């Protein structure tokens, strides 16, 4: 496997790391030490990883309340993330934002919102600013199929296309807005068509294939960065394995069946990419990630809660 193995290593490290972080979050959750609603990305890691592996550190991502994956894939600090979930003063938002508002400005993770679709125009505005400032970075906005229902989605597509902003739209289509399937919400389920109608070229990537995502998005990123193209749009089909919010499975409540999960689990991208590595290389990556995760949880456990005075800080400058 030689050379190929080297290419798969960073992908596997990123995929495995996100999967294992979230499994640990889910494991700890019943202890009630994490007092923050969690929206796990388990099953959807391939999109964030496939996209973020094509980016540079100075590039910017905006996320959603389901942002553990994009935060970590873009280089967000793991210790600060776990501390944030624990509500500790060492968290990425000093314990004031929680799981739904992960931020790491140094890593280009510019925040995430609990109100669906609201960060899409932020990415457009940020990209407009980069163009005005003549900076070489690009911006990625991650959002789900639910966000495509919102007016801000259409408004953002239009303005991004109008101003030819250096922006990549990534729709993580997991088919559900909470428990409502896309076909109950969209008369016409063609999300790419909506982007194209607003002047943003769009492609759909089936099957949650991390290598395909990495390849096609990578080509798009280069076209945007070189100025050859304005904003581009990808609809990445994926699947949320866990419940909408919380650490459990939810296949027994009638809105979806376990058989729906099976094809996605059969093509689990974490296992798939791991199987492409030499065993020793894989085990070495896993062992290092496990150490890192243990340290992050120990860091969160050992950190202090914010002082009472922190209630009043950060409302405005100074």
């Amino acid at each position, binding site marked *: 496997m030689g050379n190929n193995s080297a290419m798969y290593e960073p992908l596997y490290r990123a995929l495995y790391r996100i999967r294992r972080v979230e499994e640990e979050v889910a494991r700890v959750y019943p202890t009630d030490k994490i007092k923050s609603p969690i929206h796990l990305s388990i099953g959807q890691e391939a999109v964030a990883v496939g996209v973020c592996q094509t980016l540079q550190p100075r590039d*910017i991502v905006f996320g959603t309340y389901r942002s553990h994956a994009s935060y970590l894939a873009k280089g967000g600090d793991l210790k600060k993330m776990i501390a944030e979930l624990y509500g500790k003063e060492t968290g990425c938002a000093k314990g004031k934002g929680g799981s739904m508002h992960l931020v790491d400005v140094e890593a280009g993770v510019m925040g995430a919102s609990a*109100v669906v679709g*609201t960060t899409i125009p932020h990415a457009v505005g940020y990209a407009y600013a980069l163009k005005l*400032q003549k900076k070489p970075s690009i911006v990625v906005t991650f959002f789900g199929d639910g966000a495509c229902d919102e007016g801000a989605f259409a*408004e953002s597509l239009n*303005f991004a296309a109008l101003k030819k902003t250096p922006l990549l739209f990534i729709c993580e289509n997991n088919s559900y807005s909470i428990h409502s399937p896309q076909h109950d919400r969209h008369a016409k389920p063609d999300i790419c068509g909506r982007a194209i109608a607003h002047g943003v070229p769009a492609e759909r990537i089936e099957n949650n294939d991390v290598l395909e995502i990495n390849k096609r998005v990578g080509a798009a990123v280069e076209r945007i960065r070189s100025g050859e193209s304005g904003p581009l749009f990808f609809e990445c089909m994926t699947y949320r394995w866990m419940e909408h919010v919380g650490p459990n499975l939810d296949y027994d409540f009638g809105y979806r069946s376990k058989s729906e999960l099976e094809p996605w689990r059969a093509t689990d991208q974490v296992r798939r990419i791991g199987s492409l590595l030499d065993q020793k290389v894989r085990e070495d990556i896993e062992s290092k990630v496990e150490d890192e995760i243990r340290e992050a949880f120990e860091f969160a456990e050992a950190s202090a809660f914010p002082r009472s005075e922190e209630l009043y800080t*950060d409302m405005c*400058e100074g």
Partner: protein
Amino acid sequence: MERVLTYAEALLEATEQEMERDPSVILFGIGVDDFKGTWGTTKDLHLKFGRDRVFDTPLAEDGMTGVAIGAALAGLRPIHVHIRMDFVLLAMNQIINIAAKSRYMYGGSVSVPLVVRSVIGRSWGQGAQHSQGLHSYFTHVPGLKVVAPSTPYDAKGALTASIRDNDPVMFIEHRLIHFQKGHVPQAPYTVPFGKARILAAGSDVTLVGISYMAVECLRAQHFLSEVGIHAEVIDPVCLAPLDMETILASVAKTRRLIVVDTAWTSCGMSGEIIARVAEHLQGSDRPRLQRMGYEPVTCPTTKNLEDLFYPNPQKIAAAAYSMVHDNGSSWAPKHVDSPEVVQFRGPF
């Protein structure tokens, strides 16, 4: 000779000077670059600074407010202009859920230096959806500064301060104060947030007038002086943070307070000021307190009903007279339309 500008000219001058001083300031909103230039307040700025920094927008208040926030996160200083405050309702999600909260919910790691200008419409026939003063929606939420100056001097200084501020500011205007004239220095200056201005000194009753109502309170004060009542008129200038010290000191002196808002009274800014005064000046010698504002109905368009809808100098003076005399006697000056109301020829 004192340099005199209109309120609208003062806004234009502040914007132009700040855009000159700081290349990160950008200006956008529906019609900011058209031939009317937002009643002159943004006129021809696109010619001077280019259409990358000054641009018209699609009719997408929600999305464009999000764009403004994103640009602010990237280090720009956007000014987003709404020709009617009613339209800002379409942007409430971004203003309340994001702009007001970003610094806090991201633990102080980001700032949103954004100015949202919006204009309360009036006279004549603006009706249900072109007349609303919704500033108390914004003063309710921590994380937003809200300014509503009434004089050209404060308009320039407060807008300059708003543009330089590193947090979101709601800049509230009123269509009828765009015509006000007053002294405005040419050199840039700032007016501090959270500092009220005493427009007229008096000892019998305190009149706090918000935005255009500060102008109307000055007229009421003039009427009252003819019947021997000395009203103190205060313009809060800034509604959040609010300078209660100035208001409390005045009420401690006059023991009488009328707050006149260019908005409804229910759950509004007038009630907030009254509540804070009541909390501070409790005791046996309680001050007399009164709110005034829009009548509790939807704004009608026809002139005779519209006249009844708004507070005016006569109503304010009559209320102050009754409060001062406190013996059931009443008086009201003869009704004369305020000059801006008379002069307004529309259509907008």
